[in-house]
């Protein structure tokens, strides 16, 4: 049994109402997408078939939802039980992030009414990365629902079901570690088939899955720090800095591995010249690299890691770094050839903003109604 409690309090706060307005605006543009076609809302075109609905909502959104995954590895693989108090909040954010990533994928499907073909064995193409991602993400969303179910069951007092679920939960926790490892690495594999369209600094055939996985993990740990800090301020919760500083240490380790692989690949394949080319791509690469290096430098010393403000800034930097890495590879430096360009339309952005606003509303409501966060300080 967990020690988490519903926070209670008013649901219709100003922050909630602001999100609601953004959500309604997003839904308007989404309605237009379904009545008049995708071109009526989104600026995607023949050369840029994937805009922000895929690249932000799915590719980046699910990485930002890797908190549950990262913590599950720490707690259950590396046996760090002391992180349990952070787990439910991370799982909730993961569930919402992934569910809305699924929604994003669905609304972006040009022929969404046939989405179930993905699940029919006679249609499946096992060569396709998209099949692996589609099936894996769908399954993981179900796994997250089961992993989060105890919070709901505790709330309604279904202790019998809770007991049975708790006995079987280890299978779902294991799946909840395996599945993101699979599809987060596959998100990198997408880039392989795009070939020359992906700029040389981001195209690395054999290391794509590894780089995608490492960034997903570091983004997962960073979002745990970010959420814990934000909740602490927003809901006046006890300070978790001692726990979070150890996560900061893990991030530094993962980032060092990432930087070695990333720069090793660039140096070994003779692509250093692109870094200093002085063009758009080289500037984006330098910005991305700065954002990756900042958390390493900031969190290198024990003392800095215990400063909650430094931790938060490092986590935010890492979230931007990971997001920019994916934006750069999939969109900002993506070049399908002459004649094509892409910049998202207002409507397209508002749909994504609306989806994120819904995610925040759902999070705020659920932590108030379900036992997710820890109100009193723990050992």
């Amino acid at each position: 049994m967990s020690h988490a409690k519903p926070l209670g309090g008013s649901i219709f706060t100003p922050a909630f109402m602001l999100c609601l307005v953004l959500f309604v605006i997003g839904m308007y543009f989404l309605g237009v997408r379904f009545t008049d076609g995708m071109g009526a809302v989104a600026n995607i075109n023949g050369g840029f078939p994937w805009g922000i609905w895929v690249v932000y909502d799915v590719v980046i959104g699910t990485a930002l939802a890797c908190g549950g995954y990262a913590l599950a590895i720490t707690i259950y693989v590396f046996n760090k039980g002391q992180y349990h108090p952070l787990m439910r909040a991370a799982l909730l954010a993961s569930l919402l992030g992934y569910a809305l990533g699924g929604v994003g994928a669905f609304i972006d499907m040009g022929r969404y009414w046939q989405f179930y073909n993905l699940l029919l064995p006679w249609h499946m193409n096992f060569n396709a990365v998209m099949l692996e991602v589609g099936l894996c993400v769908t399954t993981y969303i179900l796994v997250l629902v089961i992993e989060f179910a105890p919070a709901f069951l505790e709330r309604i007092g279904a202790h019998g079901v809770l007991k049975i679920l708790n006995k079987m939960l280890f299978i779902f926790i294991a799946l909840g570690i395996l599945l993101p490892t699979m599809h987060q690495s596959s998100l990198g594999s997408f880039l392989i088939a795009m070939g020359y369209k992906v700029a040389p600094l981001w195209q690395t055939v054999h290391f794509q899955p590894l780089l995608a996985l490492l960034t997903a993990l570091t983004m997962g740990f960073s979002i745990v720090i970010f959420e814990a800090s934000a909740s602490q301020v927003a809901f006046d919760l006890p300070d978790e800095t001692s726990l979070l500083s150890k996560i900061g240490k893990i991030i530094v380790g993962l980032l060092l591995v990432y930087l070695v692989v990333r720069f090793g690949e660039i140096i070994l394949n003779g692509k250093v010249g692109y870094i200093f080319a002085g063009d758009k791509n080289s500037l984006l690469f330098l910005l991305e690299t700065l954002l990756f290096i900042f958390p390493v430098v900031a969190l290198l010393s024990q003392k800095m890691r215990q400063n909650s403000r430094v931790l938060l800034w490092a986590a935010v930097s890492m979230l931007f770094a990971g997001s920019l890495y994916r934006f750069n590879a999939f969109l900002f430096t993506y070049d399908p050839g002459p004649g094509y360009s892409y910049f998202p339309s207002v409507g397209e952005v508002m749909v994504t903003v609306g989806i994120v606003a819904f995610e925040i509303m759902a999070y705020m409501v659920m932590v108030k109604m379900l036992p997710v966060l820890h109100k009193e300080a723990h050992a």
Partner: protein
Amino acid sequence: MDRRTFLKTAGAGVAGAACISTVADARPNLEPAPEAVGMLYDSTLCVGCKACVTACKEVNDMTPVDRGDGHIYDSALDLSGDTLNVIKVYSDGTAAVKDSEENGFAFEKRSCMHCVDPGCVSVCPVTAMRRDPLTGIVTHHPDACIGCRTCMVGCPYNVPQFEYDNAFGRIHKCQMCNQEGLERINKGGMTACAEVCPTGATLFGPRSMLMEEAKRRMELKSGDNYNFPRGDISKPESYHEKELEADYQNHIWGEKEAGGTNVLHISAIAFDKLGMPPLEDRSYASVSEGVQHTLYKYMALPAAAMAGLTYVVKRNKDNHDGEE
């Protein structure tokens, strides 16, 4: 577990993953289908009349694109949900001389290249893109398609196009006039664009014969006379003799690019000037499938990982539950 063990384990895991990804052995490129059919587009013969664009629209029942400038001809600028075939023009400086890179112009046909090892087929999660095992024609099947548009991303030529202006749109691409209901090739016919081409710039036929023809033309020098066939190279409707005004580039596009294509292009100016992508011989499909199948062969790696994870998670979870 202390910090050292954590770092050691993490390091081992990463090293393992790195090994897996580097040993990933891509399959070789696919070979041309046994009775592969295709087209040979000779840019030096094209006069830019766009009869092929119009015929393509008629045969495939697609709306002409009208940009409101009163043109009689279809004025499509690029491939789209309404356009499977388009003639583009390269021009430089004064654009006075045909087939000259400097102060010249040249035409280029853009339509599906019917790759020997098609990216679109490899990346489609629901097998909505298929390569005919006999003819090598790459077809699209909207009844299977979910509209994820990975085929568009995975096509080096940006050929598959979605109908963005239709709430219930679909992907369109050239299917060599052989889609269900039309089946011109199965009925012994040829593609509409080759049929109407007045100069034989677009020539239909078996890939092997077209390749031989392209190689014969590579041997020619400007000033040479050559008898150019029209229509289907295996049974030409007519020939016309013409003196070569420019040397061909010694490059048959589609012989090797990304595993080769069934639609071959030859030209007097470099292909990158004509907007062709920077491709190497290896197909992206073969590399991508290599990585994917190394990681997921018989699901052995995921199954082993799941077994290990289940064991470790159960042990640790039981420990934690006992402590509470």
